[in-house]
Protein backbone atom coordinates (compact mmCIF):
# COMPACT_ATOMS: atom_id res chain seq x y z
CA UNK A 1 0.00 0.00 0.00
CA UNK A 2 1.16 3.55 -0.75
CA UNK A 3 2.30 5.59 2.20
CA UNK A 4 3.07 9.23 2.80
CA UNK A 5 3.83 11.44 5.75
CA UNK A 6 1.01 13.93 5.37
CA UNK A 7 -1.98 13.43 3.10
CA UNK A 8 -3.78 16.70 2.42
CA UNK A 9 -7.33 16.20 1.24
CA UNK A 10 -8.51 19.14 -0.79
CA UNK A 11 -6.38 21.53 -2.84
CA UNK A 12 -8.15 24.83 -2.19
CA UNK A 13 -6.66 27.74 -0.24
CA UNK A 14 -6.47 25.77 3.02
CA UNK A 15 -5.18 22.52 1.51
CA UNK A 16 -2.59 24.19 -0.71
CA UNK A 17 -1.31 26.17 2.26
CA UNK A 18 -1.20 23.04 4.42
CA UNK A 19 0.74 21.14 1.75
CA UNK A 20 3.26 23.96 1.36
CA UNK A 21 3.94 24.31 5.06
CA UNK A 22 4.14 20.56 5.75
CA UNK A 23 6.50 20.14 2.79
CA UNK A 24 8.60 23.09 3.94
CA UNK A 25 9.47 21.13 7.08
CA UNK A 26 10.59 18.20 4.96
CA UNK A 27 7.56 15.94 5.24
CA UNK A 28 6.54 13.86 2.24
CA UNK A 29 3.17 15.29 1.24
CA UNK A 30 0.42 13.83 -0.92
CA UNK A 31 -2.07 16.48 -1.98
CA UNK A 32 -5.34 15.05 -3.23
CA UNK A 33 -7.96 17.03 -5.13
CA UNK A 34 -11.03 15.92 -7.02
CA UNK A 35 -10.72 18.58 -9.71
CA UNK A 36 -8.37 18.62 -12.67
CA UNK A 37 -6.49 21.60 -11.29
CA UNK A 38 -5.52 22.92 -7.88
CA UNK A 39 -6.93 26.06 -6.29
CA UNK A 40 -10.39 24.96 -5.17
CA UNK A 41 -12.78 27.88 -5.26
CA UNK A 42 -9.91 30.37 -5.65
CA UNK A 43 -9.87 29.80 -9.39
CA UNK A 44 -13.21 31.56 -9.83
CA UNK A 45 -12.52 34.43 -7.46
CA UNK A 46 -11.78 37.33 -9.75
CA UNK A 47 -12.09 39.87 -6.93
CA UNK A 48 -9.33 41.16 -4.68
CA UNK A 49 -8.92 39.66 -1.23
CA UNK A 50 -9.10 41.57 2.04
CA UNK A 51 -6.71 41.10 4.95
CA UNK A 52 -3.04 42.00 5.03
CA UNK A 53 -0.07 41.26 2.79
CA UNK A 54 0.52 37.98 4.64
CA UNK A 55 -2.85 36.76 3.33
CA UNK A 56 -2.24 38.30 -0.11
CA UNK A 57 -4.62 41.22 0.42
CA UNK A 58 -5.44 43.22 -2.70
CA UNK A 59 -4.52 40.22 -4.89
CA UNK A 60 -7.30 38.47 -6.80
CA UNK A 61 -8.22 34.98 -5.60
CA UNK A 62 -7.44 33.43 -8.95
CA UNK A 63 -3.94 34.93 -8.78
CA UNK A 64 -3.46 33.74 -5.20
CA UNK A 65 -4.09 30.24 -6.48
CA UNK A 66 -1.15 30.71 -8.87
CA UNK A 67 1.06 32.10 -6.10
CA UNK A 68 0.32 29.11 -3.88
CA UNK A 69 0.95 26.63 -6.70
CA UNK A 70 4.25 28.35 -7.38
CA UNK A 71 5.21 28.02 -3.72
CA UNK A 72 4.21 24.38 -3.75
CA UNK A 73 6.32 23.68 -6.82
CA UNK A 74 9.43 24.59 -4.80
CA UNK A 75 8.91 21.37 -2.90
CA UNK A 76 8.21 19.13 -5.88
CA UNK A 77 10.76 16.57 -4.64
CA UNK A 78 8.65 15.74 -1.62
CA UNK A 79 5.16 16.64 -2.83
CA UNK A 80 2.96 14.37 -4.88
CA UNK A 81 -0.19 15.93 -6.34
CA UNK A 82 -3.10 13.66 -7.22
CA UNK A 83 -5.65 15.42 -9.40
CA UNK A 84 -9.06 14.12 -10.50
CA UNK A 85 -8.79 12.15 -7.29
CA UNK A 86 -11.64 11.88 -4.81
CA UNK A 87 -11.17 10.48 -1.35
CA UNK A 88 -14.04 8.04 -0.99
CA UNK A 89 -13.51 6.83 2.52
CA UNK A 90 -11.49 7.19 5.64
CA UNK A 91 -11.27 4.04 7.75
CA UNK A 92 -10.58 3.37 11.40
CA UNK A 93 -7.11 1.94 10.63
CA UNK A 94 -6.11 5.25 9.03
CA UNK A 95 -6.44 4.00 5.47
CA UNK A 96 -7.72 6.43 2.86
CA UNK A 97 -9.41 5.08 -0.28
CA UNK A 98 -9.16 7.10 -3.46
CA UNK A 99 -10.85 7.07 -6.82
CA UNK A 100 -8.78 8.71 -9.54
CA UNK A 101 -10.51 9.34 -12.82
CA UNK A 102 -13.25 6.78 -13.14
CA UNK A 103 -10.94 3.82 -13.48
CA UNK A 104 -8.29 3.94 -10.78
CA UNK A 105 -8.94 2.89 -7.22
CA UNK A 106 -6.25 2.70 -4.57
CA UNK A 107 -5.45 3.13 -0.93
CA UNK A 108 -2.99 5.32 0.91
CA UNK A 109 -1.97 5.02 4.51
CA UNK A 110 -0.65 8.42 5.58
CA UNK A 111 1.04 9.01 8.91
CA UNK A 112 -1.04 12.16 9.34
CA UNK A 113 -3.63 14.00 7.31
CA UNK A 114 -5.05 17.45 6.89
CA UNK A 115 -8.67 17.45 5.84
CA UNK A 116 -9.45 20.61 3.89
CA UNK A 117 -12.55 19.60 1.98
CA UNK A 118 -14.24 22.98 2.19
CA UNK A 119 -17.99 23.50 2.24
CA UNK A 120 -21.04 23.19 0.03
CA UNK A 121 -23.81 25.69 -0.61
CA UNK A 122 -26.95 25.55 1.48
CA UNK A 123 -30.24 25.36 -0.36
CA UNK A 124 -33.53 27.08 0.33
CA UNK A 125 -36.87 25.31 0.21
CA UNK A 126 -39.62 27.25 -1.58
CA UNK A 127 -42.27 26.30 -4.15
CA UNK A 128 -40.82 25.51 -7.58
CA UNK A 129 -37.28 25.62 -6.29
CA UNK A 130 -36.39 22.98 -8.89
CA UNK A 131 -37.02 25.26 -11.87
CA UNK A 132 -34.05 25.57 -14.21
CA UNK A 133 -32.47 28.97 -13.66
CA UNK A 134 -32.27 28.58 -9.89
CA UNK A 135 -28.67 28.05 -8.86
CA UNK A 136 -26.31 28.28 -5.95
CA UNK A 137 -24.44 31.59 -6.16
CA UNK A 138 -21.12 29.78 -6.07
CA UNK A 139 -22.23 27.58 -8.92
CA UNK A 140 -23.03 30.64 -11.00
CA UNK A 141 -19.62 32.07 -10.14
CA UNK A 142 -18.00 28.88 -11.46
CA UNK A 143 -20.17 28.93 -14.55
CA UNK A 144 -19.19 32.50 -15.38
CA UNK A 145 -15.62 32.81 -14.21
CA UNK A 146 -14.29 29.33 -14.91
CA UNK A 147 -16.36 28.28 -17.92
CA UNK A 148 -17.19 31.67 -19.39
CA UNK A 149 -20.94 31.05 -19.50
CA UNK A 150 -23.47 33.68 -18.45
CA UNK A 151 -26.39 32.05 -16.62
CA UNK A 152 -29.12 34.28 -18.08
CA UNK A 153 -30.20 37.89 -18.54
CA UNK A 154 -31.74 39.08 -15.27
CA UNK A 155 -30.92 37.74 -11.85
CA UNK A 156 -32.23 37.86 -8.31
CA UNK A 157 -29.59 37.30 -5.65
CA UNK A 158 -30.89 35.70 -2.47
CA UNK A 159 -28.46 36.50 0.32
CA UNK A 160 -26.44 39.64 1.01
CA UNK A 161 -23.43 38.00 2.59
CA UNK A 162 -20.04 38.37 0.97
CA UNK A 163 -20.65 35.61 -1.57
CA UNK A 164 -24.02 37.07 -2.58
CA UNK A 165 -22.60 40.58 -2.92
CA UNK A 166 -19.47 39.49 -4.79
CA UNK A 167 -21.32 37.22 -7.19
CA UNK A 168 -23.89 39.98 -7.86
CA UNK A 169 -21.05 42.26 -8.88
CA UNK A 170 -19.51 39.56 -11.05
CA UNK A 171 -22.88 38.86 -12.67
CA UNK A 172 -22.92 42.50 -13.73
CA UNK A 173 -19.35 42.20 -14.97
CA UNK A 174 -20.57 39.32 -17.10
CA UNK A 175 -23.31 41.52 -18.53
CA UNK A 176 -26.18 40.04 -16.50
CA UNK A 177 -28.59 42.54 -15.00
CA UNK A 178 -29.17 42.09 -11.28
CA UNK A 179 -32.77 42.97 -10.44
CA UNK A 180 -32.23 42.96 -6.68
CA UNK A 181 -30.34 41.48 -3.79
CA UNK A 182 -32.48 40.30 -0.91
CA UNK A 183 -31.64 38.97 2.53
CA UNK A 184 -33.87 37.58 5.25
CA UNK A 185 -31.77 39.28 7.91
CA UNK A 186 -32.51 42.89 8.83
CA UNK A 187 -28.96 43.91 7.94
CA UNK A 188 -26.53 43.27 5.11
CA UNK A 189 -24.27 40.43 6.21
CA UNK A 190 -21.34 40.98 3.87
CA UNK A 191 -18.76 43.73 3.89
CA UNK A 192 -20.48 47.07 3.40
CA UNK A 193 -17.90 48.23 0.86
CA UNK A 194 -19.07 45.35 -1.36
CA UNK A 195 -22.68 46.42 -0.81
CA UNK A 196 -21.88 50.04 -1.67
CA UNK A 197 -20.10 49.19 -4.89
CA UNK A 198 -23.13 47.20 -6.09
CA UNK A 199 -25.59 49.82 -4.87
CA UNK A 200 -23.89 52.49 -6.95
CA UNK A 201 -24.46 50.26 -9.98
CA UNK A 202 -28.15 50.85 -9.27
CA UNK A 203 -28.97 47.48 -7.75
CA UNK A 204 -31.44 47.68 -4.86
CA UNK A 205 -30.73 45.71 -1.70
CA UNK A 206 -33.80 44.63 0.26
CA UNK A 207 -33.12 43.42 3.80
CA UNK A 208 -35.80 41.46 5.72
CA UNK A 209 -36.99 39.85 2.48
CA UNK A 210 -37.14 36.21 1.44
CA UNK A 211 -38.29 34.18 -1.55
CA UNK A 212 -41.93 33.20 -1.40
CA UNK A 213 -41.99 31.22 -4.61
CA UNK A 214 -40.56 30.83 -8.06
CA UNK A 215 -42.80 30.99 -11.11
CA UNK A 216 -42.16 29.54 -14.54
CA UNK A 217 -43.32 26.99 -17.04
CA UNK A 218 -40.17 25.28 -18.24
CA UNK A 219 -37.70 27.51 -16.52
CA UNK A 220 -37.63 30.44 -14.12
CA UNK A 221 -39.69 33.41 -15.32
CA UNK A 222 -40.53 35.27 -12.12
CA UNK A 223 -39.56 35.31 -8.49
CA UNK A 224 -41.97 36.39 -5.78
CA UNK A 225 -40.31 37.93 -2.76
CA UNK A 226 -41.96 38.83 0.52
CA UNK A 227 -41.01 40.99 3.46
CA UNK A 228 -40.34 39.44 6.87
CA UNK A 229 -41.29 40.89 10.25
CA UNK A 230 -39.05 40.98 13.33
CA UNK A 231 -39.97 37.36 14.02
CA UNK A 232 -38.90 36.40 10.50
CA UNK A 233 -42.51 35.73 9.50
CA UNK A 234 -43.80 36.80 6.06
CA UNK A 235 -45.87 39.98 6.10
CA UNK A 236 -49.00 39.43 3.95
CA UNK A 237 -49.47 41.97 1.20
CA UNK A 238 -45.78 42.78 0.85
CA UNK A 239 -45.19 40.35 -2.01
CA UNK A 240 -43.36 41.67 -5.06
CA UNK A 241 -42.90 39.98 -8.38
CA UNK A 242 -39.57 40.28 -10.11
CA UNK A 243 -39.04 39.31 -13.74
CA UNK A 244 -35.92 37.21 -13.56
CA UNK A 245 -34.62 34.18 -15.39
CA UNK A 246 -31.85 33.52 -12.90
CA UNK A 247 -32.03 33.16 -9.14
CA UNK A 248 -28.86 32.68 -7.12
CA UNK A 249 -29.11 31.21 -3.65
CA UNK A 250 -26.44 32.44 -1.31
CA UNK A 251 -27.70 31.74 2.17
CA UNK A 252 -24.59 30.16 3.61
CA UNK A 253 -22.27 27.21 3.39
CA UNK A 254 -22.22 23.82 5.12
CA UNK A 255 -18.86 22.25 6.01
CA UNK A 256 -18.16 19.15 3.90
CA UNK A 257 -17.40 16.99 6.89
CA UNK A 258 -18.30 13.46 5.74
CA UNK A 259 -14.75 12.19 6.10
CA UNK A 260 -14.51 13.54 9.63
CA UNK A 261 -17.71 11.75 10.59
CA UNK A 262 -16.37 8.56 9.02
CA UNK A 263 -13.16 8.89 11.00
CA UNK A 264 -15.25 9.27 14.16
CA UNK A 265 -13.91 12.71 15.00
CA UNK A 266 -15.96 14.40 17.71
CA UNK A 267 -18.35 16.80 15.96
CA UNK A 268 -20.18 19.78 17.43
CA UNK A 269 -23.12 21.67 16.02
CA UNK A 270 -22.14 25.34 15.85
CA UNK A 271 -24.48 27.38 13.63
CA UNK A 272 -22.06 30.34 13.66
CA UNK A 273 -19.51 28.12 11.90
CA UNK A 274 -21.96 26.71 9.36
CA UNK A 275 -23.26 23.58 11.10
CA UNK A 276 -21.44 20.49 12.35
CA UNK A 277 -17.71 21.13 12.72
CA UNK A 278 -14.97 19.04 14.32
CA UNK A 279 -13.77 19.64 17.83
CA UNK A 280 -10.08 20.51 17.57
CA UNK A 281 -7.17 21.88 19.48
CA UNK A 282 -5.18 25.08 18.89
CA UNK A 283 -3.08 23.26 16.28
CA UNK A 284 -6.21 22.21 14.37
CA UNK A 285 -5.83 18.56 15.34
CA UNK A 286 -9.19 16.83 15.77
CA UNK A 287 -10.01 14.39 18.54
CA UNK A 288 -8.58 11.63 16.33
CA UNK A 289 -4.80 11.75 16.64
CA UNK A 290 -3.09 12.60 13.38
CA UNK A 291 -6.21 14.02 11.71
CA UNK A 292 -6.01 17.77 11.27
CA UNK A 293 -8.49 20.16 9.67
CA UNK A 294 -8.24 23.53 7.95
CA UNK A 295 -10.46 25.91 6.03
CA UNK A 296 -14.24 25.87 5.74
CA UNK A 297 -14.60 22.24 6.88
CA UNK A 298 -13.35 23.37 10.29
CA UNK A 299 -15.77 26.30 10.33
CA UNK A 300 -17.00 28.46 7.46
CA UNK A 301 -14.98 31.66 7.27
CA UNK A 302 -13.18 33.91 4.79
CA UNK A 303 -10.53 32.36 2.53
CA UNK A 304 -7.81 34.53 4.10
CA UNK A 305 -8.36 32.69 7.38
CA UNK A 306 -8.51 29.36 5.54
CA UNK A 307 -5.01 29.90 4.17
CA UNK A 308 -3.59 30.65 7.60
CA UNK A 309 -5.40 27.68 9.13
CA UNK A 310 -3.90 25.52 6.41
CA UNK A 311 -0.41 26.79 7.13
CA UNK A 312 -0.87 26.11 10.83
CA UNK A 313 -2.37 22.64 10.41
CA UNK A 314 0.30 21.64 7.87
CA UNK A 315 3.12 22.84 10.10
CA UNK A 316 1.76 21.09 13.17
CA UNK A 317 0.93 17.86 11.34
CA UNK A 318 4.51 17.66 10.08
CA UNK A 319 6.04 18.74 13.38
CA UNK A 320 4.18 16.06 15.29
CA UNK A 321 5.69 13.48 12.94
CA UNK A 322 9.15 14.69 13.87
CA UNK A 323 9.81 17.19 11.10
CA UNK A 324 10.87 20.63 12.21
CA UNK A 325 12.86 23.72 11.41
CA UNK A 326 14.63 26.30 13.57
CA UNK A 327 11.85 28.81 12.96
CA UNK A 328 9.01 26.36 13.57
CA UNK A 329 7.84 27.97 16.81
CA UNK A 330 7.94 31.46 15.32
CA UNK A 331 5.93 30.35 12.28
CA UNK A 332 3.40 28.53 14.39
CA UNK A 333 2.93 31.56 16.61
CA UNK A 334 2.71 33.84 13.59
CA UNK A 335 -0.20 31.79 12.22
CA UNK A 336 -2.02 31.92 15.54
CA UNK A 337 -1.47 35.67 15.76
CA UNK A 338 -2.69 36.21 12.20
CA UNK A 339 -5.88 34.25 12.89
CA UNK A 340 -6.52 36.18 16.09
CA UNK A 341 -6.03 39.47 14.26
CA UNK A 342 -8.30 38.55 11.34
CA UNK A 343 -11.04 37.58 13.79
CA UNK A 344 -10.58 40.36 16.33
CA UNK A 345 -12.82 43.07 14.85
CA UNK A 346 -16.59 43.50 14.83
CA UNK A 347 -17.03 41.43 11.64
CA UNK A 348 -15.23 38.56 13.41
CA UNK A 349 -17.76 38.53 16.25
CA UNK A 350 -19.77 35.66 14.81
CA UNK A 351 -16.68 33.52 14.24
CA UNK A 352 -15.42 34.30 17.74
CA UNK A 353 -18.79 33.30 19.21
CA UNK A 354 -18.68 30.08 17.20
CA UNK A 355 -15.13 29.26 18.25
CA UNK A 356 -16.05 29.97 21.86
CA UNK A 357 -18.78 27.32 21.60
CA UNK A 358 -16.46 24.92 19.79
CA UNK A 359 -13.37 25.26 21.92
CA UNK A 360 -15.10 26.22 25.17
Amino acid at each position, binding site marked *: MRTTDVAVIGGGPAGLSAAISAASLGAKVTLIDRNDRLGGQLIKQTHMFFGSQKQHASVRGVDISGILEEQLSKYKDNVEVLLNAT*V*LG*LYEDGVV*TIEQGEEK*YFKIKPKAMVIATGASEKVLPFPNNDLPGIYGAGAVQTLMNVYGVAPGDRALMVGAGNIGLIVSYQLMQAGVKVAAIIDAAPKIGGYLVHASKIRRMGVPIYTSYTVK*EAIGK*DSLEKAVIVQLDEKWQPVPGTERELDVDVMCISIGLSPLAELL*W*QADCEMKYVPELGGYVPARDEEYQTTVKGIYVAGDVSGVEEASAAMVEGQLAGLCAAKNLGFTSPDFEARRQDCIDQLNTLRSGPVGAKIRAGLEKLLG
Partner: protein
Amino acid sequence: MSQNKTIVCRCEDLTLEDIRELIKKGYKSVDEIKRISRCGMGPCQGRTCRDIVLSELAKAEGKDISELKMSTFRPPVKPVKLGLIERGEE
Protein backbone atom coordinates in the same frame (compact mmCIF):
# COMPACT_ATOMS: atom_id res chain seq x y z
CA MET B 1 -42.15 20.46 -12.99
CA SER B 2 -43.73 23.69 -11.84
CA GLN B 3 -46.52 22.16 -9.79
CA ASN B 4 -45.77 24.34 -6.82
CA LYS B 5 -43.70 21.60 -5.32
CA THR B 6 -40.97 22.47 -2.89
CA ILE B 7 -38.19 20.04 -3.60
CA VAL B 8 -36.08 18.92 -0.67
CA CYS B 9 -34.24 15.96 -2.20
CA ARG B 10 -33.62 16.48 -5.90
CA CYS B 11 -31.92 13.14 -6.36
CA GLU B 12 -34.86 11.11 -5.14
CA ASP B 13 -37.61 13.62 -5.96
CA LEU B 14 -38.93 14.24 -2.48
CA THR B 15 -40.88 17.34 -1.52
CA LEU B 16 -41.18 19.29 1.69
CA GLU B 17 -44.70 17.84 2.01
CA ASP B 18 -43.31 14.31 1.71
CA ILE B 19 -40.81 14.96 4.47
CA ARG B 20 -43.37 16.63 6.75
CA GLU B 21 -45.75 13.71 6.18
CA LEU B 22 -43.05 11.24 7.22
CA ILE B 23 -42.21 13.26 10.32
CA LYS B 24 -45.92 13.28 11.20
CA LYS B 25 -45.99 9.52 10.83
CA GLY B 26 -43.28 9.26 13.46
CA TYR B 27 -39.99 9.07 11.63
CA LYS B 28 -37.76 10.95 14.00
CA SER B 29 -34.27 11.08 12.52
CA VAL B 30 -32.49 11.77 9.26
CA ASP B 31 -31.57 8.10 8.99
CA GLU B 32 -35.14 6.89 9.57
CA ILE B 33 -36.39 9.25 6.90
CA LYS B 34 -33.60 8.11 4.62
CA ARG B 35 -34.47 4.43 5.04
CA ILE B 36 -38.14 4.88 4.34
CA SER B 37 -37.86 7.42 1.53
CA ARG B 38 -34.30 7.22 0.08
CA CYS B 39 -33.88 10.91 0.98
CA GLY B 40 -30.15 11.55 0.78
CA MET B 41 -29.29 8.32 -1.01
CA GLY B 42 -28.81 9.81 -4.46
CA PRO B 43 -25.79 11.23 -6.22
CA CYS B 44 -25.40 14.16 -3.81
CA GLN B 45 -25.39 11.84 -0.79
CA GLY B 46 -27.46 14.20 1.30
CA ARG B 47 -25.45 17.36 0.78
CA THR B 48 -28.53 19.17 -0.54
CA CYS B 49 -31.29 17.77 1.61
CA ARG B 50 -29.73 16.91 4.95
CA ASP B 51 -29.81 20.43 6.38
CA ILE B 52 -33.44 20.92 5.39
CA VAL B 53 -34.50 17.58 6.86
CA LEU B 54 -32.66 18.41 10.09
CA SER B 55 -34.36 21.79 10.38
CA GLU B 56 -37.79 20.27 9.66
CA LEU B 57 -37.19 17.64 12.35
CA ALA B 58 -36.02 20.31 14.78
CA LYS B 59 -39.14 22.41 14.11
CA ALA B 60 -41.48 19.44 14.51
CA GLU B 61 -39.82 18.23 17.69
CA GLY B 62 -39.31 21.69 19.16
CA LYS B 63 -35.66 20.84 19.59
CA ASP B 64 -32.36 22.36 18.61
CA ILE B 65 -30.60 20.69 15.68
CA SER B 66 -27.72 19.83 18.01
CA GLU B 67 -30.10 17.62 20.01
CA LEU B 68 -31.08 15.54 17.00
CA LYS B 69 -29.37 12.37 15.89
CA MET B 70 -27.16 13.03 12.88
CA SER B 71 -27.14 10.62 9.99
CA THR B 72 -24.48 7.92 9.72
CA PHE B 73 -21.72 8.60 7.23
CA ARG B 74 -20.20 5.66 5.39
CA PRO B 75 -17.78 5.30 2.49
CA PRO B 76 -17.94 5.92 -0.38
CA VAL B 77 -18.71 9.65 -0.12
CA LYS B 78 -19.91 9.72 -3.71
CA PRO B 79 -21.38 7.18 -6.07
CA VAL B 80 -18.77 5.01 -7.78
CA LYS B 81 -19.11 2.31 -10.40
CA LEU B 82 -19.22 -1.14 -8.87
CA GLY B 83 -16.57 -2.21 -11.38
CA LEU B 84 -14.12 0.17 -9.76
CA ILE B 85 -14.26 -1.66 -6.49
CA GLU B 86 -14.68 -5.10 -8.06
CA ARG B 87 -11.40 -4.66 -9.95
CA GLY B 88 -9.72 -3.83 -6.67
CA GLU B 89 -6.62 -1.77 -6.15
CA GLU B 90 -4.62 -0.72 -9.17
